[in-house]
Protein backbone atom coordinates (compact mmCIF):
# COMPACT_ATOMS: atom_id res chain seq x y z
CA UNK A 1 0.00 0.00 0.00
CA UNK A 2 2.68 2.43 1.06
CA UNK A 3 4.86 1.61 -1.91
CA UNK A 4 1.91 2.06 -4.25
CA UNK A 5 1.27 5.48 -2.78
CA UNK A 6 4.90 6.46 -3.34
CA UNK A 7 4.78 5.19 -6.90
CA UNK A 8 1.57 7.11 -7.53
CA UNK A 9 3.28 10.21 -6.25
CA UNK A 10 6.44 9.87 -8.30
CA UNK A 11 5.37 8.79 -11.82
CA UNK A 12 3.61 12.05 -12.78
CA UNK A 13 6.74 13.98 -11.87
CA UNK A 14 8.94 12.20 -14.38
CA UNK A 15 8.13 9.62 -16.96
CA UNK A 16 4.40 10.28 -17.10
CA UNK A 17 4.53 14.02 -16.71
CA UNK A 18 1.28 15.57 -17.92
CA UNK A 19 2.94 18.46 -19.74
CA UNK A 20 5.99 17.20 -21.57
CA UNK A 21 5.10 13.52 -21.98
CA UNK A 22 1.34 13.48 -22.31
CA UNK A 23 1.17 17.02 -23.76
CA UNK A 24 -1.94 17.91 -21.78
CA UNK A 25 -3.03 21.27 -20.48
CA UNK A 26 -0.83 23.25 -22.83
CA UNK A 27 -3.16 26.24 -23.11
CA UNK A 28 -2.53 27.62 -19.69
CA UNK A 29 1.07 26.42 -19.72
CA UNK A 30 1.72 28.95 -22.42
CA UNK A 31 -0.65 31.70 -21.44
CA UNK A 32 0.30 32.44 -17.85
CA UNK A 33 4.04 31.84 -17.96
CA UNK A 34 5.20 35.31 -18.97
CA UNK A 35 5.50 36.30 -15.32
CA UNK A 36 6.70 34.05 -12.53
CA UNK A 37 4.38 35.56 -9.95
CA UNK A 38 1.23 34.87 -11.98
CA UNK A 39 2.47 31.38 -12.70
CA UNK A 40 2.88 30.54 -9.01
CA UNK A 41 -0.69 31.59 -8.31
CA UNK A 42 -2.00 29.68 -11.31
CA UNK A 43 -0.07 26.56 -10.32
CA UNK A 44 -1.48 26.65 -6.79
CA UNK A 45 -4.97 26.96 -8.26
CA UNK A 46 -4.44 23.98 -10.54
CA UNK A 47 -2.95 21.83 -7.77
CA UNK A 48 -5.90 22.67 -5.52
CA UNK A 49 -8.42 21.85 -8.24
CA UNK A 50 -6.87 18.66 -9.50
CA UNK A 51 -6.27 17.25 -6.00
CA UNK A 52 -9.73 17.89 -4.65
CA UNK A 53 -11.57 17.03 -7.88
CA UNK A 54 -9.87 13.63 -8.07
CA UNK A 55 -10.62 13.03 -4.40
CA UNK A 56 -14.28 14.03 -4.69
CA UNK A 57 -14.84 12.07 -7.86
CA UNK A 58 -13.23 8.99 -6.35
CA UNK A 59 -15.60 9.11 -3.38
CA UNK A 60 -18.59 9.39 -5.70
CA UNK A 61 -17.32 6.99 -8.36
CA UNK A 62 -19.64 4.12 -7.44
CA UNK A 63 -22.86 6.13 -7.24
CA UNK A 64 -22.52 8.12 -10.47
CA UNK A 65 -24.33 6.52 -13.42
CA UNK A 66 -21.93 5.93 -16.30
CA UNK A 67 -23.97 7.92 -18.80
CA UNK A 68 -23.72 11.24 -17.01
CA UNK A 69 -20.17 10.69 -15.74
CA UNK A 70 -18.58 13.41 -17.86
CA UNK A 71 -21.18 15.93 -16.83
CA UNK A 72 -20.66 15.20 -13.14
CA UNK A 73 -16.89 15.43 -13.58
CA UNK A 74 -17.21 18.82 -15.20
CA UNK A 75 -19.48 20.08 -12.45
CA UNK A 76 -17.11 18.90 -9.72
CA UNK A 77 -14.20 20.65 -11.42
CA UNK A 78 -16.21 23.80 -12.03
CA UNK A 79 -17.19 23.97 -8.36
CA UNK A 80 -13.56 23.97 -7.22
CA UNK A 81 -12.55 26.42 -9.92
CA UNK A 82 -15.25 28.83 -8.75
CA UNK A 83 -13.79 28.60 -5.24
CA UNK A 84 -10.32 29.42 -6.62
CA UNK A 85 -11.75 32.29 -8.66
CA UNK A 86 -13.60 33.86 -5.73
CA UNK A 87 -10.64 33.54 -3.37
CA UNK A 88 -8.27 35.10 -5.93
CA UNK A 89 -10.69 37.91 -6.68
CA UNK A 90 -10.99 38.72 -2.99
CA UNK A 91 -7.36 38.44 -1.89
CA UNK A 92 -5.26 39.07 -5.00
CA UNK A 93 -7.37 41.30 -7.26
CA UNK A 94 -4.37 42.43 -9.33
CA UNK A 95 -3.19 38.97 -10.22
CA UNK A 96 -6.78 37.90 -10.77
CA UNK A 97 -7.11 40.68 -13.31
CA UNK A 98 -3.96 39.64 -15.14
CA UNK A 99 -4.87 35.98 -15.25
CA UNK A 100 -8.23 36.98 -16.68
CA UNK A 101 -10.10 34.09 -18.25
CA UNK A 102 -7.36 31.59 -17.60
CA UNK A 103 -8.54 30.83 -14.07
CA UNK A 104 -11.91 29.77 -15.48
CA UNK A 105 -10.14 27.77 -18.13
CA UNK A 106 -8.76 25.40 -15.50
CA UNK A 107 -12.13 23.69 -16.03
CA UNK A 108 -11.19 22.68 -19.53
CA UNK A 109 -7.60 21.93 -18.60
CA UNK A 110 -7.30 18.38 -19.84
CA UNK A 111 -5.06 17.38 -16.93
CA UNK A 112 -7.79 17.64 -14.35
CA UNK A 113 -10.37 15.63 -16.23
CA UNK A 114 -7.73 13.32 -17.65
CA UNK A 115 -6.60 12.24 -14.18
CA UNK A 116 -10.20 11.77 -13.03
CA UNK A 117 -10.94 9.53 -15.98
CA UNK A 118 -7.69 7.65 -15.98
CA UNK A 119 -7.10 7.25 -12.27
CA UNK A 120 -9.79 8.43 -9.87
CA UNK A 121 -12.51 6.46 -11.68
CA UNK A 122 -10.96 3.16 -10.64
CA UNK A 123 -9.02 3.89 -7.44
CA UNK A 124 -9.88 4.61 -3.80
CA UNK A 125 -10.10 8.23 -2.57
CA UNK A 126 -6.77 8.24 -0.71
CA UNK A 127 -4.71 7.18 -3.72
CA UNK A 128 -6.71 9.45 -6.00
CA UNK A 129 -5.88 12.38 -3.77
CA UNK A 130 -2.18 11.58 -4.04
CA UNK A 131 -2.43 11.12 -7.80
CA UNK A 132 -4.23 14.43 -8.21
CA UNK A 133 -1.67 16.19 -6.06
CA UNK A 134 1.26 14.61 -7.92
CA UNK A 135 -0.17 15.46 -11.33
CA UNK A 136 -0.71 19.02 -10.17
CA UNK A 137 2.87 19.26 -8.97
CA UNK A 138 4.20 17.59 -12.12
CA UNK A 139 2.34 20.19 -14.15
CA UNK A 140 3.36 22.99 -11.82
CA UNK A 141 7.11 22.58 -11.84
CA UNK A 142 7.25 22.54 -15.63
CA UNK A 143 5.27 25.78 -15.68
CA UNK A 144 7.59 27.33 -13.13
CA UNK A 145 10.70 26.42 -15.12
CA UNK A 146 9.21 27.87 -18.31
CA UNK A 147 8.03 31.02 -16.52
CA UNK A 148 11.48 31.45 -14.95
CA UNK A 149 13.20 31.58 -18.33
CA UNK A 150 10.51 33.67 -19.98
CA UNK A 151 10.55 36.32 -17.29
CA UNK A 152 14.34 36.29 -16.98
CA UNK A 153 14.99 36.69 -20.70
CA UNK A 154 11.91 38.72 -21.52
CA UNK A 155 12.01 41.29 -18.74
CA UNK A 156 15.41 40.72 -17.12
CA UNK A 157 13.70 40.15 -13.78
CA UNK A 158 12.71 37.32 -11.46
CA UNK A 159 9.54 37.84 -9.43
CA UNK A 160 9.82 41.51 -10.33
CA UNK A 161 13.38 41.95 -9.00
CA UNK A 162 15.93 43.12 -11.52
CA UNK A 163 18.58 40.47 -12.12
CA UNK A 164 20.71 41.63 -14.99
CA UNK A 165 20.73 45.38 -14.46
CA UNK A 166 20.84 48.09 -17.07
CA UNK A 167 23.06 46.53 -19.71
CA UNK A 168 20.51 43.83 -20.43
CA UNK A 169 18.32 44.28 -23.49
CA UNK A 170 14.96 42.59 -22.97
CA UNK A 171 14.05 39.87 -25.42
CA UNK A 172 10.53 41.15 -25.74
CA UNK A 173 9.62 38.19 -27.94
CA UNK A 174 9.84 36.02 -24.82
CA UNK A 175 6.91 37.64 -23.05
CA UNK A 176 4.83 37.57 -26.20
CA UNK A 177 3.01 34.64 -27.74
CA UNK A 178 5.73 33.11 -29.96
CA UNK A 179 8.23 32.99 -27.08
CA UNK A 180 5.97 30.66 -25.17
CA UNK A 181 5.82 28.19 -28.03
CA UNK A 182 9.58 28.23 -28.50
CA UNK A 183 10.46 27.82 -24.83
CA UNK A 184 8.06 24.91 -24.38
CA UNK A 185 9.38 23.26 -27.55
CA UNK A 186 12.97 23.60 -26.39
CA UNK A 187 12.02 22.26 -22.96
CA UNK A 188 10.38 19.19 -24.50
CA UNK A 189 13.41 18.73 -26.74
CA UNK A 190 15.86 18.80 -23.84
CA UNK A 191 13.80 16.46 -21.66
CA UNK A 192 13.10 13.97 -24.43
CA UNK A 193 16.72 14.00 -25.50
CA UNK A 194 17.78 13.15 -21.94
CA UNK A 195 15.16 10.43 -21.61
CA UNK A 196 16.42 8.59 -24.66
CA UNK A 197 19.88 8.19 -23.17
Amino acid at each position, binding site marked *: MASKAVKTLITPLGKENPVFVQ*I*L*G*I*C*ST*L*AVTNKLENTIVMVLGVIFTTTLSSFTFSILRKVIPARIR*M*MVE*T*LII*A*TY*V*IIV*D*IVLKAYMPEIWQQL*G*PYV*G*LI*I*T*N*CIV*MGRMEAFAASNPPGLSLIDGLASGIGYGYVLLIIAFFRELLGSGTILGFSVFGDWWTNWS*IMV*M*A*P*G*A*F*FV*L*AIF*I*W*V*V*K*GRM*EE
Partner: protein
Amino acid sequence: MNGELLPAAVFFGSIFTGNILLSNYLGMCSFLSVSKEIKTSTGLGAAVIFVMAVTSLLNWIVYHYLLIPLGLEYLRFIVFIVVIAAFVQLVEMIIERVSEGLYAALGIFLPLITVNCAILGVSLFMVIRDYSLVNSFFFGLGSGIGWFLAIIAMAGIRKKISGAKIPKGLEGPGITLIIAGMMALAFMGFSGMINIT
Protein backbone atom coordinates in the same frame (compact mmCIF):
# COMPACT_ATOMS: atom_id res chain seq x y z
CA MET B 1 -15.42 50.57 -23.14
CA ASN B 2 -15.86 48.28 -26.11
CA GLY B 3 -19.39 49.40 -26.79
CA GLU B 4 -18.27 51.54 -29.69
CA LEU B 5 -16.27 48.83 -31.47
CA LEU B 6 -17.64 48.03 -34.89
CA PRO B 7 -18.74 44.42 -35.42
CA ALA B 8 -16.52 44.26 -38.50
CA ALA B 9 -13.52 45.33 -36.43
CA VAL B 10 -14.22 42.66 -33.85
CA PHE B 11 -14.68 40.10 -36.58
CA PHE B 12 -11.41 40.77 -38.39
CA GLY B 13 -9.57 41.50 -35.19
CA SER B 14 -10.45 38.13 -33.74
CA ILE B 15 -9.33 36.35 -36.91
CA PHE B 16 -5.99 38.09 -37.36
CA THR B 17 -4.67 40.37 -34.64
CA GLY B 18 -6.06 38.51 -31.67
CA ASN B 19 -6.10 34.99 -33.05
CA ILE B 20 -7.51 32.86 -30.27
CA LEU B 21 -5.00 30.08 -30.83
CA LEU B 22 -1.83 31.92 -31.67
CA SER B 23 -2.10 34.87 -29.31
CA ASN B 24 -4.22 33.42 -26.50
CA TYR B 25 -3.11 29.78 -26.78
CA LEU B 26 -6.64 28.45 -26.52
CA GLY B 27 -7.52 25.10 -28.02
CA MET B 28 -3.93 23.88 -28.07
CA CYS B 29 -4.72 20.32 -26.96
CA SER B 30 -6.89 19.40 -29.90
CA PHE B 31 -4.77 21.60 -32.15
CA LEU B 32 -1.67 19.51 -31.42
CA SER B 33 -3.37 16.13 -31.61
CA VAL B 34 -5.70 16.63 -34.57
CA SER B 35 -3.54 18.69 -36.94
CA LYS B 36 -1.90 15.62 -38.47
CA GLU B 37 -4.26 15.50 -41.45
CA ILE B 38 -5.90 18.23 -43.48
CA LYS B 39 -9.19 16.35 -43.80
CA THR B 40 -9.81 15.84 -40.10
CA SER B 41 -8.57 19.36 -39.38
CA THR B 42 -11.16 20.76 -41.76
CA GLY B 43 -13.92 18.79 -40.06
CA LEU B 44 -12.94 19.85 -36.58
CA GLY B 45 -12.35 23.43 -37.68
CA ALA B 46 -15.80 23.68 -39.23
CA ALA B 47 -17.43 22.26 -36.12
CA VAL B 48 -15.51 24.75 -33.96
CA ILE B 49 -16.64 27.74 -36.06
CA PHE B 50 -20.26 26.69 -35.79
CA VAL B 51 -20.28 25.87 -32.08
CA MET B 52 -18.24 28.93 -31.13
CA ALA B 53 -20.49 31.37 -32.97
CA VAL B 54 -23.69 29.95 -31.52
CA THR B 55 -22.50 29.36 -27.95
CA SER B 56 -21.08 32.86 -27.63
CA LEU B 57 -24.50 34.15 -28.59
CA LEU B 58 -26.32 31.81 -26.18
CA ASN B 59 -23.94 32.53 -23.33
CA TRP B 60 -24.28 36.28 -23.85
CA ILE B 61 -28.05 35.99 -23.56
CA VAL B 62 -27.86 33.74 -20.51
CA TYR B 63 -25.27 35.95 -18.82
CA HIS B 64 -27.02 39.27 -19.39
CA TYR B 65 -30.64 38.24 -18.98
CA LEU B 66 -30.33 35.53 -16.35
CA LEU B 67 -27.15 35.72 -14.31
CA ILE B 68 -26.78 39.48 -13.93
CA PRO B 69 -30.40 40.17 -12.85
CA LEU B 70 -30.16 37.32 -10.34
CA GLY B 71 -26.73 38.45 -9.10
CA LEU B 72 -25.23 35.04 -9.90
CA GLU B 73 -22.26 36.15 -12.02
CA TYR B 74 -19.89 33.95 -10.04
CA LEU B 75 -21.74 30.87 -11.33
CA ARG B 76 -20.83 31.71 -14.91
CA PHE B 77 -18.20 28.95 -15.24
CA ILE B 78 -20.71 26.23 -14.45
CA VAL B 79 -23.51 27.81 -16.48
CA PHE B 80 -21.32 28.40 -19.55
CA ILE B 81 -19.96 24.88 -19.59
CA VAL B 82 -23.44 23.42 -19.16
CA VAL B 83 -24.78 25.57 -22.01
CA ILE B 84 -21.90 24.48 -24.25
CA ALA B 85 -22.25 20.80 -23.36
CA ALA B 86 -26.02 20.86 -23.81
CA PHE B 87 -25.74 22.66 -27.12
CA VAL B 88 -23.14 20.26 -28.46
CA GLN B 89 -25.25 17.29 -27.41
CA LEU B 90 -28.30 18.79 -29.09
CA VAL B 91 -26.47 19.50 -32.33
CA GLU B 92 -25.09 15.99 -32.36
CA MET B 93 -28.58 14.52 -32.01
CA ILE B 94 -30.04 16.78 -34.71
CA ILE B 95 -27.25 16.13 -37.18
CA GLU B 96 -27.56 12.39 -36.63
CA ARG B 97 -31.27 12.48 -37.55
CA VAL B 98 -31.08 14.98 -40.38
CA SER B 99 -28.01 14.25 -42.41
CA GLU B 100 -25.89 11.13 -42.40
CA GLY B 101 -23.20 12.67 -44.56
CA LEU B 102 -22.77 15.62 -42.22
CA TYR B 103 -22.80 13.33 -39.21
CA ALA B 104 -20.04 11.22 -40.69
CA ALA B 105 -18.03 14.36 -41.38
CA LEU B 106 -18.60 16.31 -38.16
CA GLY B 107 -20.23 13.89 -35.72
CA ILE B 108 -17.09 12.41 -34.23
CA PHE B 109 -15.63 15.85 -33.59
CA LEU B 110 -18.52 17.23 -31.61
CA PRO B 111 -17.82 15.46 -28.30
CA LEU B 112 -14.22 16.67 -28.53
CA ILE B 113 -15.46 20.23 -28.71
CA THR B 114 -17.05 20.30 -25.28
CA VAL B 115 -13.62 20.09 -23.71
CA ASN B 116 -11.98 22.41 -26.23
CA CYS B 117 -10.87 25.31 -24.06
CA ALA B 118 -11.22 27.76 -26.93
CA ILE B 119 -15.02 27.50 -26.81
CA LEU B 120 -15.24 28.29 -23.11
CA GLY B 121 -12.46 30.84 -23.53
CA VAL B 122 -14.44 32.80 -26.11
CA SER B 123 -17.39 33.04 -23.75
CA LEU B 124 -15.17 34.15 -20.87
CA PHE B 125 -13.35 36.75 -22.98
CA MET B 126 -16.69 38.07 -24.15
CA VAL B 127 -17.70 38.72 -20.54
CA ILE B 128 -14.37 40.26 -19.55
CA ARG B 129 -14.23 42.55 -22.59
CA ASP B 130 -17.86 43.54 -22.14
CA TYR B 131 -18.95 43.04 -25.73
CA SER B 132 -22.45 43.82 -26.96
CA LEU B 133 -24.66 41.03 -28.29
CA VAL B 134 -23.78 41.64 -31.94
CA ASN B 135 -20.08 41.99 -31.18
CA SER B 136 -20.13 38.76 -29.16
CA PHE B 137 -21.54 36.89 -32.09
CA PHE B 138 -18.91 38.29 -34.45
CA PHE B 139 -16.21 37.64 -31.89
CA GLY B 140 -17.29 33.99 -31.65
CA LEU B 141 -17.53 33.64 -35.41
CA GLY B 142 -14.19 35.38 -36.03
CA SER B 143 -12.40 33.37 -33.37
CA GLY B 144 -13.75 30.18 -34.87
CA ILE B 145 -12.54 31.16 -38.33
CA GLY B 146 -9.17 32.16 -36.89
CA TRP B 147 -8.83 28.78 -35.20
CA PHE B 148 -9.88 27.05 -38.43
CA LEU B 149 -7.24 28.95 -40.41
CA ALA B 150 -4.52 28.12 -37.91
CA ILE B 151 -5.27 24.40 -37.78
CA ILE B 152 -5.53 24.08 -41.57
CA ALA B 153 -2.23 25.90 -42.02
CA MET B 154 -0.62 23.69 -39.40
CA ALA B 155 -1.97 20.50 -40.99
CA GLY B 156 -0.59 21.62 -44.35
CA ILE B 157 2.84 22.41 -42.92
CA ARG B 158 2.98 19.15 -40.97
CA LYS B 159 2.21 17.25 -44.15
CA LYS B 160 5.08 19.01 -45.92
CA ILE B 161 7.59 18.19 -43.21
CA SER B 162 6.44 14.61 -42.71
CA GLY B 163 9.41 13.35 -44.71
CA ALA B 164 11.91 15.76 -43.23
CA LYS B 165 14.67 14.71 -40.87
CA ILE B 166 13.92 16.13 -37.45
CA PRO B 167 16.17 15.90 -34.36
CA LYS B 168 15.01 12.94 -32.30
CA GLY B 169 13.70 14.76 -29.24
CA LEU B 170 11.79 17.25 -31.36
CA GLU B 171 9.66 14.75 -33.24
CA GLY B 172 5.92 15.07 -32.70
CA PRO B 173 4.85 17.78 -30.27
CA GLY B 174 8.20 19.56 -30.18
CA ILE B 175 8.38 20.45 -33.85
CA THR B 176 4.66 21.26 -33.90
CA LEU B 177 5.17 23.79 -31.15
CA ILE B 178 8.07 25.37 -33.00
CA ILE B 179 5.96 25.68 -36.14
CA ALA B 180 3.15 27.17 -34.05
CA GLY B 181 5.66 29.67 -32.69
CA MET B 182 6.65 30.69 -36.20
CA MET B 183 3.02 31.02 -37.19
CA ALA B 184 2.43 33.18 -34.16
CA LEU B 185 5.37 35.35 -35.26
CA ALA B 186 3.81 35.69 -38.69
CA PHE B 187 0.44 36.59 -37.23
CA MET B 188 2.10 39.21 -35.03
CA GLY B 189 2.60 41.11 -38.26
CA PHE B 190 -1.10 41.92 -38.14
CA SER B 191 -0.96 43.38 -34.66
CA GLY B 192 -1.54 47.07 -34.45
CA MET B 193 -4.01 47.03 -37.31
CA ILE B 194 -7.03 46.57 -35.06
CA ASN B 195 -7.08 46.50 -31.29
CA ILE B 196 -9.95 44.55 -29.81
CA THR B 197 -8.82 43.92 -26.27
